[in-house]
């Protein structure tokens, strides 16, 4: 008889991340990639439709504005915002900018990213609105 008590893994292989808020947030970032993939495929299909004919392009637009299309894009939009905020949050950990002897504070770095994000977004929207 041995007194050995081997460790048995209690965690589920598929839902381990449900055990902590930190892991849930982590999985939320990871899952955003599913929406990036689907959205990219939708864009590529749109480009093919655009090259085909006017009717094909307008058919693509109709599909985008169908109920399923609207639901998908709203959910994907939320995930893209999660991706943006979590990506910017990690910037100070990934980038260290020295100003003289001092490290540039993280909040300035993150703030600058949001500033550029606002300018880029505005540029895209103005471009689309002007036509």
């Amino acid at each position, binding site marked *: 008889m041995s007194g050995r008590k081997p460790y048995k893994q209690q965690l589920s292989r598929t839902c381990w991340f449900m055990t902590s808020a930190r892991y849930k947030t982590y999985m939320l970032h990871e899952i955003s990639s599913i929406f990036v993939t689907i959205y990219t495929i939708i864009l590529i299909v749109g480009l093919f439709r655009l090259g085909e004919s006017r009717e094909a392009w307008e058919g693509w*637009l109709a599909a985008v504005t169908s109920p399923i299309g609207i639901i998908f894009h709203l959910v994907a939009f939320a995930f893209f915002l999660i991706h943006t905020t979590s990506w910017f949050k990690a910037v100070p950990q990934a980038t260290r900018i020295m100003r003289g002897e001092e490290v540039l504070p993280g909040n300035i770095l993150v703030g600058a990213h949001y500033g550029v994000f606002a300018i880029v977004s505005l540029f895209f929207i103005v471009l689309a609105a002007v*036509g």
Partner: protein
Amino acid sequence: MSAVSKPSPKAIFWFLFAAGGTVCAFVLPAMIFITGIGPAIGLFDQSGLSYPSIYGFFSLWIPKLALFGIIFLALWHAAHRLRVCAHDFGIRADSIVALTLYGLATIGTLATIIALLRIG
């Protein structure tokens, strides 16, 4: 550790993941607002997304290259992250997963080039 380390292909995928993540963070919310949400609420479908307007825009080389860059990086960023995702959901056949996902990203990249070249 030897002083001269062999370059690893991992670096390429990691670079594409990081570059793609950064580009996606900056441009994807605005892009999906324009192409996905705008038309549903009557924005852009008479302006930027109207056929003559968008066809003319993507007939130009700079918009073509810019959109190619965004889609290319988004595809490879997502492929790398989905590979990690598969592992996190308990799928341990990493080489098959990697081959499938990077293969799909390659197909997506080629499809984007073909689609863009057919416009204009």
